[in-house]
């Protein structure tokens, strides 16, 4: 899945130039921008981000305050600091504040891209596992006294969460609007998960007081209770579940799931689909195509197959946001397009 990087700088020209220059790395990460710390805080609330790159001197909420905000509420998101007024003291403060890196201006796009990619790789430096039981795996973390940040994705891909371990002790958990023990109960109730292990933990505050075994038992009890309720009270349950963020877990999955259903139904296997996700970095292309459509009175883009000469090709399906289906270039392209075309009729 393509990761999102938020770049925060009050210099609009700099932002445009960085976004443009980093578009070459769109296969690895997409870029969203904010003009100050307050706008950045809004973006953090609105979308899932994998990294924040911020300037220090900004109006409204400066870089240090933004860094403190991220460490408090989004400790799983690494922060890189960029600044034109670099002093050893500032660098020390940034690192003590939790920043993982410090880049002095001027720098090249390639320098920044390299730092971004290196930092993003650390998200899974300790390994990635699929279809594992979260309860069993996390007991191992405790036994091995690991210090790590674990990102979990429930098997349907609809829910995700983060767990923070220090020396084998579970400090905190996050999923949707939940934090601490409530989030841990939720995460441990997921049957099968995929997870990434990052061998560091920026979380300082200990929000979970109970030990892991007690949390696991309570999670199982709540899960059983919920199952019993489901059996006795018919009706939709999905909306009640807390999503990680409103955009991706409530509105998002339905459109993505519908598309996956259509493709799975049509192809059973061999569709060549590798991943499906929202990615706003394609909005520029969609807008350009819509302009072309307007010129020829051909209407707006409904679906598009794009080959950029990379190891994957992409199918774009614009909805409220752009849904991207990454596919193997040897996929049955015409058939997939035909299926999408039939969908649009």
């Amino acid at each position: 899945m393509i990761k999102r990087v938020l770049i925060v700088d009050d210099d609009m020209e700099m932002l445009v130039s960085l976004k443009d220059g980093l578009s070459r790395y769109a296969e690895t990460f997409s870029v969203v921008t904010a003009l100050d710390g307050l706008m950045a805080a809004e973006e953090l609330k609105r979308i899932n981000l994998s990294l924040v790159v911020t300037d220090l001197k900004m109006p409204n909420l400066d870089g240090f305050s933004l860094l403190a905000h991220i460490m408090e509420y989004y400790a799983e998101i690494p922060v890189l600091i960029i600044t034109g007024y670099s002093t050893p003291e500032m660098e020390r403060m940034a690192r003590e504040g939790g920043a993982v890196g410090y880049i002095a201006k001027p720098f090249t796009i390639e320098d920044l891209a390299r730092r971004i990619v290196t930092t993003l790789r650390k998200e899974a430096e300790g390994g990635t596992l699929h279809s594992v039981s979260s309860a069993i795996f996390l007991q191992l973390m405790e036994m091995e006294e690991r210090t790590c940040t674990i990102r979990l994705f429930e098997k349907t891909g609809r829910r995700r969460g983060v767990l923070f371990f220090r020396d084998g002790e579970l400090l905190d958990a996050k999923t949707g609007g939940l934090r601490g023990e409530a989030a841990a109960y939720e995460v441990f109730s997921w049957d099968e998960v995929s997870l990434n292990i990052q061998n560091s933990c920026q979380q300082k505050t200990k929000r979970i007081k109970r030990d892991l075994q007690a949390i696991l038992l309570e999670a199982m009890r709540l899960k059983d209770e919920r199952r019993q309720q489901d059996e006795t009270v018919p009706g939709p349950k999905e909306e009640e579940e807390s999503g990680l963020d409103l955009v991706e877990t409530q509105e998002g999955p339905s459109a993505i799931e519908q598309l996956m259903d259509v493709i799975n139904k049509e192809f059973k296997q061999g569709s060549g689909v590798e991943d499906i996700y929202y990615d706003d970095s394609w909005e520029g292309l969609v807008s350009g195509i819509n302009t072309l459509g307007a010129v020829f009175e051909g209407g707006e883009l409904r679906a598009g197959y794009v080959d950029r000469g990379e190891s994957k090709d992409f199918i774009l399906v614009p909805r409220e946001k752009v849904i991207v289906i990454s596919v193997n270039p040897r996929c049955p392209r015409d058939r997939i397009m035909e299926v999408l075309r039939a969908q649009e009729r």
Partner: protein
Amino acid sequence: MKDLFNEILAMEDIQGVLLLSSEGETIFKEFNVPVRKNNELDESFHEIVKSFNGIREADLLLEKVRVYIRKSNMSYLIVIMGSFASAAMVRLSCDMILPSLNDAKAGKGLRQIFKRSR
């Protein structure tokens, strides 16, 4: 000039062919259907081509037309198709045309190969 694209233009339900430089200048355009905004075309292309950044090939399904885009070394070939056109045949024809487009060296420029069509 037009000869190169005759085969595509003659296919069933092909509405038009455009060749734009990578800066968005019109090198060639020919339509089989009336284009109401013909006079606005050239102004729009710069921004449109800018958005193509990184595309090597694209097969696009719009509400009323289908658009096939193919990048050569120095240009974008754009084919506008109706719903009865065969995208596979268009792709095949573009495969055949592409070497000629790629052969247009920077020094000579595409303009010397194609006469601009207004």
